């Protein structure tokens, strides 16, 4: 080891406290880098596993290849594995789905499942050409029922239309024909989940059945390339020979291979932001450590210089220092990061499992720590780079100090003369010692710059990290904490009120249902009202306080209310609970007004506003709201209002040649004739919406008052349940039995649980991040403050030698700490608020949460800044007290 290497190592060992703080800083930083990169790597491997599970691990699929082409594929050097589904042919199997009448029989190669996922729900894979497995949707979608062990015979052939032979990518054509060629008998040995649409498109006319050991003329070939990155090039180069070739895009995207450049952008983008934040904090921390270590050794550097060390050699000592620290700290940091993320995943595994379908990953795949050498290498590299960046500046600075100045410590006495003013109150509080501190602070600003800077960085990091997390949680948290109902069923095409009532009654008796409600809701389109009924805020947002479209609309403006028709008893109860007087024979509307409006801002971006749209005082003074409803004109559709005229477009359905319609072709009617005025009776306004009313402008009526409008509405059923998944299953069966549409059934409670899990996950990561960032920040401040005091041991010893008491010391130090803390906060808090505002802009893009000053985090940071500063001061003072004053004063070698 060179003499400078030895020198560096010994300096590190001698200054244990500082070395420990620096190592801790690097460990924390590397741990966080590792956590970020490992989290990304694990997430990626989780998603890859998910896609391999759902779809398969193949890179590309070439459909309709013949024997020769298949052989050629198998012989290519850059293809490592080829598996096939040989195409046996189509058979009419009597499916009830008119667009999917066939069974599409294929024969799998022996190892197909190593590249393509086949999820058996029962039975086993076919072993020979007499066995077949059928997809589950043959029954659920095509209503063709077979059981395990059933045998059936089919005539197999090819689909032709005109002279063309059709395949799975050609949807069913009504005039196509099936030319049967052979007859075969199969035994059903298993059922499997439907293939992904990449293999069997939605429009494919045949249900894919899989047999084995059949020799065929055409194949769907699935293959893996030696290097996945070559996939797209391979496809492009061979497009003439293999026309129907598709890449496994989702899988390749996760490998970072995409034609559209920025794959994994979200993950890597988020990762980059986090890494940048951590790097900023880490550089500040580690930089300070180095800067202290170097200025502590300025004198030694001077000596080295005067005995002939070159600038390069001195810089190298600092790099040696960085190197030694990295050797110790980086492996520790990586280990800590891996353990941390492993623990996080371990405790969150439950939450992640239920999130499978959010990420498009099927059940059975769990998120677990994937040790990725690349991720670790990146984390280590970023850590090392951070450390070296931090070491670089102090190293350069140290070398610049002239040898003589360093040796004689000329720096120590080169202070600026500044007038010191001190208020009498502070003077009385802190006495002469305070004055000394004030002088120290004012005349020797450099000394405090490091401490102030680290306070500044810490405050900014802490506050902006917590705002980041807060906004992130806010934007993920779409529910306000409680759920009013567990399941809903919506009847979209309600032909038969009788039937709806029957379905409702049946569903209400499903398992575990405790309460339920049925109501009708419909949107009021093409309604207008007078300005006097519109709230000032709405008008000012609409017209910027300056109604311009008066020319077009007169004094009318569009409103889009929703009409609710609820059970009469419920209606009465609602009125009673809210102190609204009603007459059930002439009920009038109970209004809930929480209107959502989108208006372009100055930049042309749409901004969302939530507000009370109606002028409550005006309406309640007469209990009336006049609305103008657009008249329907036969053969025409309302288009727009312009210059006081309503424009209607003639219906030209089925005759496209008449498009586009010019204004001359449109029907124009004076708006006062086009609109039909109705005075709605308004009984009262609600402050809170009942759970069955959405956040919108809602007019609530009893069912008995519903007429035509109610019949055009959509029926909603809401259910409360003790056990939502049991209820959901039970309801699915009921709907099946009644032959009713299942698409309207929704399990809100399950969604709510998933959302809660998502929020839990975000919170865990967010708080983990905040805690680590705070640790970095605290270490940083502690390090800087204590080192600042250690470096002044001579000065302090001198004060002691001329008789400053312990109390006096603390007075002086307290004053310094307070000033330092205040300065750090004074620049840190405004900067942090500014950063918070930037984060607000980025994250809430599109959401309209109000910007707020993060008082809570500010309070915490004010408290912690003083706690840490005073803590560090008390710690170092107690260390210094143990030293002998005279030794310190006399010892020239330190």
């Amino acid at each position, binding site marked *: 080891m060179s*003499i400078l290497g*030895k020198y560096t190592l010994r300096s590190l060992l001698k200054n244990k406290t500082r070395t420990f703080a620096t190592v801790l800083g690097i460990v924390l930083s590397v741990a966080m880098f590792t956590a970020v990169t490992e989290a990304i790597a694990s997430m990626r491997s989780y998603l890859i596993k998910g896609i391999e599970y759902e779809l398969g691990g193949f890179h590309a699929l070439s459909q309709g290849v013949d024997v020769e082409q298949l052989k050629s594929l198998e012989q290519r050097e850059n293809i490592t594995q080829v598996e096939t589904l040989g195409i046996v042919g189509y058979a009419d199997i009597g499916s009830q789905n008119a667009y999917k009448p066939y069974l599409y029989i294929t024969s799998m190669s022996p190892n197909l499942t190593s590249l393509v996922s086949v999820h058996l729900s029962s039975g086993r894979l076919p072993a020979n050409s007499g066995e077949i497995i059928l997809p589950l949707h043959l029954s659920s979608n095509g209503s063709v029922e077979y059981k395990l062990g059933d045998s059936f015979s089919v005539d197999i052939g090819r689909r032709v239309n005109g002279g063309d032979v059709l395949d799975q990518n050609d949807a069913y054509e009504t005039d196509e024909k099936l030319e049967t060629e052979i007859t075969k008998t199969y035994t059903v040995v298993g059922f499997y989940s439907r293939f992904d649409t990449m293999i069997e498109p939605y429009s494919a006319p045949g249900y894919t059945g899989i047999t084995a050991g059949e020799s065929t003329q055409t194949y769907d070939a699935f293959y893996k390339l030696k290097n996945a990155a070559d996939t797209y090039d391979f496809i492009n180069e061979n497009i003439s020979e293999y026309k129907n070739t598709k890449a496994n895009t989702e899988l390749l995207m996760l490998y970072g291979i995409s034609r559209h450049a920025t794959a994994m952008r979200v993950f890597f983008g988020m990762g980059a932001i986090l890494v940048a934040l951590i790097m900023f904090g880490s550089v500040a921390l580690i930089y300070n450590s180095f800067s202290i270590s170097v200025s502590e050794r300025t004198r030694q550097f001077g000596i080295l210089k005067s*005995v002939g060390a070159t600038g390069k050699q001195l810089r190298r000592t600092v790099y040696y220092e960085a190197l030694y620290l990295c050797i110790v700290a980086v492996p520790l940091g990586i280990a800590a990061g891996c353990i941390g993320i492993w623990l996080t995943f371990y405790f969150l595994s439950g939450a992640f499992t239920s999130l499978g379908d959010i990420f498009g990953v099927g059940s059975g795949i769990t998120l677990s720590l994937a040790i990725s050498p690349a991720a670790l290498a990146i984390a280590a590299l970023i850590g090392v780079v951070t450390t070296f960046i931090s070491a670089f500046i102090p190293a350069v600075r140290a070398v610049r100090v002239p040898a003589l100045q360093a040796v004689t410590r000329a720096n120590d006495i080169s202070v600026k003369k500044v007038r010191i003013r001190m208020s009498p109150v502070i003077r009385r509080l802190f006495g002469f010692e305070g004055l000394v501190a004030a002088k120290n602070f004012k005349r020797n600003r450099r000394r405090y710059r490091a401490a102030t800077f680290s306070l500044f960085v810490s405050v900014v990091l802490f506050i902006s990290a917590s705002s980041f997390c807060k906004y992130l949680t806010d934007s993920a948290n779409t529910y306000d904490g409680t759920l009013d109902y567990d399941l809903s069923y919506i009847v979209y095409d309600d032909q038969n009120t009788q039937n709806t009532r029957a379905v409702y009654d049946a569903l209400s008796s499903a398992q575990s249902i405790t309460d339920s409600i049925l109501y009708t809701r419909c949107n009021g389109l093409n309604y207008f009202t007078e300005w006097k009924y519109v709230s000032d805020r709405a008008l000012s947002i609409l017209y910027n306080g300056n109604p311009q479209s008066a020319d077009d609309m007169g004094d009318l403006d569009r409103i889009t209310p929703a009409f609710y028709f609820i059970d009469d008893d419920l209606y009465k109860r609602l009125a009673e609970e809210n102190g609204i007087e009603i007459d059930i024979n002439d009920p009038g509307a109970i209004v809930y007004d929480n209107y959502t409006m989108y208006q372009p801002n100055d930049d042309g971006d749409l901004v969302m506003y939530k507000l009370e749209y109606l002028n409550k005082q005006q309406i309640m003074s007469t209990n009336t709201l006049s609305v103008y409803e657009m008249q329907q004109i036969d053969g025409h559709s309302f288009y727009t209002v312009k210059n006081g005229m309503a424009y209607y477009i003639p219906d030209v359905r089925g005759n496209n040649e008449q498009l586009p319609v010019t204004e001359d072709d449109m029907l124009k009617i004076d708006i006062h004739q086009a609109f039909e005025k109705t005075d709605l009776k308004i009984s009262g306004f609600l402050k809170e919406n009942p759970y069955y009313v959405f956040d919108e402008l809602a007019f609530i009526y009893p069912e008995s008052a519903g007429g035509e409008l109610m019949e055009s509405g959509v029926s909603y059923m809401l259910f409360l349940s003790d056990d939502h998944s049991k209820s959901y299953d039970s309801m699915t069966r009921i709907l099946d039995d009644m032959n009713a549409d299942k698409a309207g059934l929704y399990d809100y409670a399950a969604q709510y649980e998933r959302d809660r899990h998502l929020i839990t996950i975000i919170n865990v990561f967010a708080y983990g991040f905040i805690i680590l960032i705070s640790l970095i920040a605290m270490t940083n401040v502690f390090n800087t403050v204590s080192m600042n005091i250690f470096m002044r041991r001579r000065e302090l010893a001198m004060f002691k030698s001329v008789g400053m008491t312990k109390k006096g010391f603390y007075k002086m130090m307290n004053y310094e700490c307070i000033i330092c803390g205040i300065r750090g906060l004074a620049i840190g808090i405004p900067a942090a608020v500014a950063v918070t505002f930037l984060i607000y802009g980025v994250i809430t893009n599109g959401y309209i949460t109000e910007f707020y000053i993060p008082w809570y985090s500010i309070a915490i940071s004010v408290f912690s800044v003083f706690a840490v500063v005073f803590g560090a001061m008390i710690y170092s003072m107690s260390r210094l007290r143990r030293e002998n004053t005279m030794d310190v004063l006399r010892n020239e070698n330190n």
Partner: protein
Amino acid sequence: MEILRIENLTKIYGSGDNEVRALDGVSFSVDKGEFISIIGPSGSGKSTLLHMIGGVDRPTSGKIYMDGQDIYAQNEDQLAIFRRRHVGLIYQFYNLIPILNVVENMCLPVLLDGRHVNNDYLNDLLDTLNLRGREKHLPNQLSGGQQQRVSIGRALMNTPAVVLADEPTGNLDSKNSQEIVELLKLSNKKYNQTLVVITHDENIALQADRVISIEDGKITRDSRIRGY
């Protein structure tokens, strides 16, 4: 043979009202093997002169030639290399690196130069400086006199053209002081070492071959005491 020539050396600190002429047109030359003492009151500029010769501070104007080479024509790094090869510096406050032991401190200039330590010469120096048995000691385990002997060893280790000593005995009692002077004289004789010593001490000054007095940055007297 001339080893060191100083021509019209001027050093000005500060500017305007604060201007201090630490050195004002100093010129002299030194022959190889000469033992010179420079005396003068505090603030006369003698330390400044020494630092200029040692290449640790740059003059405002004037030139210094060592072995015929203009030392301030070099950049910082060249100057550093020049220093470790041609100059030995001894300070009043020994200026040892506290975390390096005696031998390491002594060998610093050689090691920094990337050369191998001449062990015969090192052993010879350790004997001469009476540091035997203390090779592995750290500076804070040594007395002031011993520390100064280490710093002399460091200055001599690279067999420099010139050894410069700034008040080498200023921090020592009279017994230790005399011992150090004897060592310096010994090295001057034994290794034919050129020696420039700054001192307050008349006794020490008078043991040199030649005494230069400086006052207010100017040479006021340059007298040869004995031939050599």
